[in-house]
């Protein structure tokens, strides 16, 4: 398994509320962190959404997973190559 691409994102809903000091304070809610990991392997594997999954150093809930065969490619002479893309939601709002 070779990781080819990693993309991380984190967001939260924000709202502004008045404060007794007279300033407006930002409140953040519903934090969400996500990491998208792309890797390639020479073995076909079952993909499952909604379960906990670990790819490399990242563990999270699979929100989306795709697997695609790259028929023209071989890895170290072994083929075919499969490319997996996992979108993992990571609890805690940070990844």
């Amino acid at each position, binding site marked *: 398994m070779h990781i080819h691409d990693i993309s991380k994102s984190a967001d939260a809903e924000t*709202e502004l509320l*008045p404060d*007794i000091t*007279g300033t407006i304070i930002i409140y953040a*809610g519903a934090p969400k962190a996500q990491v998208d990991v792309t890797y390639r392997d020479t073995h076909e594997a079952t993909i499952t959404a909604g379960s906990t999954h670990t790819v490399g150093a990242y563990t999270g809930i699979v929100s989306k997973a795709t697997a695609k065969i790259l028929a023209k490619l071989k890895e170290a002479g072994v083929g075919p190559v499969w490319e997996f893309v996992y979108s993992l939601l990571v609890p805690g709002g940070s990844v």
Partner: protein
Amino acid sequence: MTQRWAQYPRNLTGANCKLGDQTLISLLATESVDSDYDTASAITIAPGGPFQKGQTIRTYEGGVDTGGWVVEDGSRELDGSRTWRSKAGAPFTNVPMVSYKLRRQGYLAARSTLSETRIGQGAYPPQFCTADYMRDTILGDGATPGLRKDLADGKIDNAELYKRQSSWIVVQFAWQIVQKICTWVGLTFNLQVDLPGCATNYSPADKPALTAIKEIAAWSGASCWLDHNGVLQIFGWDQAFTGACPARPGYVLQSETHQNLFSPTHVTVVGTMQGVVWWGGAPAHWAYDHSGYGDPRLKPMVWVPKGPGQWVNVGTPEPCSVTVGLQGPECAYPVNERIQIREYNINQILAANVAKERLAYVHIMANASKWSGPGEGCQNLHPLTQNIIAVTRRLDWTGTYYKYSLDITGATARPTFGDTSDWWTTTQ
């Protein structure tokens, strides 16, 4: 207009829009002489927790004190999606949002019933009477019905006579009854008008204090309203609503002008008279009863000479009925409302005043118009000022600024009365 409107909320911040020391997220306050108590609902951020029920807290809108409120209900709201927040980057916790139902300051005292628990065993049941009623009806003169007659007949002894006599509180004016009730419940009051009408006998036992005081004020055609400081303002509809143009918001964004038909157009107050002093010639039915004077077994005692040109009604109560009407084209087709007073004695003047109080309210509400606009600069407007019947103020945090608006309902006409008819009937 839009630009001016947009300028207004800039002065409103969490520091000057608050309930006590809690920043307001929203406030809806309704003040009206039409209802017994002003009410408000508010949502605040309360880091120190909700105020306790029954606590009196003041609201500030744009830095202006808009009065005290009693906490009727304060509920802490925990809602994962709405309140689980990180404040300015701090660790996540629930935003301490509290939702309040509020009533005007003085609510607890005004709503309390005049019960034995409240006023004390010695003073219960509370009974008020005039000096004339005490002398002529309760005590009597030994010949007419009364305690002295019972004493002479041996039905009671002196101790019992004193006990029964002292169970009454003798007053000269109606405001003295108001004063006593307010003392019992811990209210303060302010007379904007005199209260010349006074029933000869009255017992407010087990009535809410406000109900009793409204009843007493109605004897003089007046009513009452709890002001921003919980002071009971006793006002006359004529005095408070002059027909002049009511106050309006700085910028009127919306208005409705009404002139409704009166319903009812006439009010009849019926009751009984006893212990009522009649000035002038002998009442019409004096002759039939005259033969029985001195011997109440022969005829019910009705009118007894009291002094030069005065007669007092004792013994059997006399029916009393007074009808008062408003002026207007619809009054040619009367819609009559009947108010029956059974608990105490009335007279024609008092009955007419009660009818006028009811009709004045009808007249004012039929001529009520409404103006809406920005609230800032209008915080000091409240009912009874500048012909205002009701004020509703709305303060809402929009996400980036406060939106503050108010509705003013004002009376555009002064109550005027048409025909007043009254008649006396005897029980014969």
